[in-house]
């Protein structure tokens, strides 16, 4: 269920969340609704994507970084 594999690349779950961000979703709740994944998994996944530099965070709002856009 991890969103980032050990080599730093997003997994299928991670890619789905990045795609949701690319579609304009920015809150964990909206990303959960868009991807059909439980909210707790989205929150933990966003932390992983943040740690990998694929998303940025501004309070409760998340966005793709340039690195995140590049993997889509």
């Amino acid at each position, binding site marked *: 269920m991890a969103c980032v594999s050990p080599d730093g690349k997003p997994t299928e779950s991670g890619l789905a969340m990045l795609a949701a961000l690319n579609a304009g979703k920015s809150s964990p709740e909206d990303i959960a609704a868009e991807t059909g994944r*439980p*909210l*707790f*998994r989205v*929150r*933990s996944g966003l932390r992983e994507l943040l740690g990998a530099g694929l998303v940025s965070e501004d309070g409760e709002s998340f966005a793709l970084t340039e690195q995140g856009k590049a993997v889509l």
Partner: protein
Amino acid sequence: MEEQMEQVVAMPRLGEKAPEFEAPTTHGMLKLSDFKGSWLIMFSHPADFTPVCTTEFMAFAEIFPELQKRGVELLGLSVDSITAHIAWVRNIEEKMGVKIPFPVIADLSKDVSTKFGMVHPGQSKTETVRTVFVIDPNQVIRLILYYPLSTGRNMAEILRVVDALQTTDANGVATPANWQPGDMAIVPPPQTQESAEERLKQGYECVDWYLCRKKV
């Protein structure tokens, strides 16, 4: 002294915020706060690859869809490694045909089980007993069950208490002994003489002023 220290480890109590943690699980690193906004049943089992625990995991998986309908997530825990958890849940799927859909904490450090008072040295110094913590969307502990190592849990009772807690919250009522969904609920006792007299006129089914029921 060490034994005394073990006995005074803080135990979470009803009505208190559940202690935050971040722990490795079979679904990745999870924090308790990741579950904020959902009901959560967090439960511990003594050990992977043990018979009673295996029947319980299959039973939890069986009620998982019913819990989801009620907005409840499930989170397991034992003092085992991630590798052991993965091997066990794969074994349950392969041998018993039951997929385990919920994450399981690998609490080798006992950080989480200590915070939640899940290790009872009188039962085992190394394993967690069978605890159930029902945590509400505000992360307040609403119900705690403890079962010994030898007694598997009753899933119907776990669903029943979730229904009771959610009914209580939605309707401002209490639930009587052996309450089941659809049964009448208890109207909380009046706090003044005036309200005791008033309630008798409110259409409740009253045995006396202090014991009134209503449909919910």
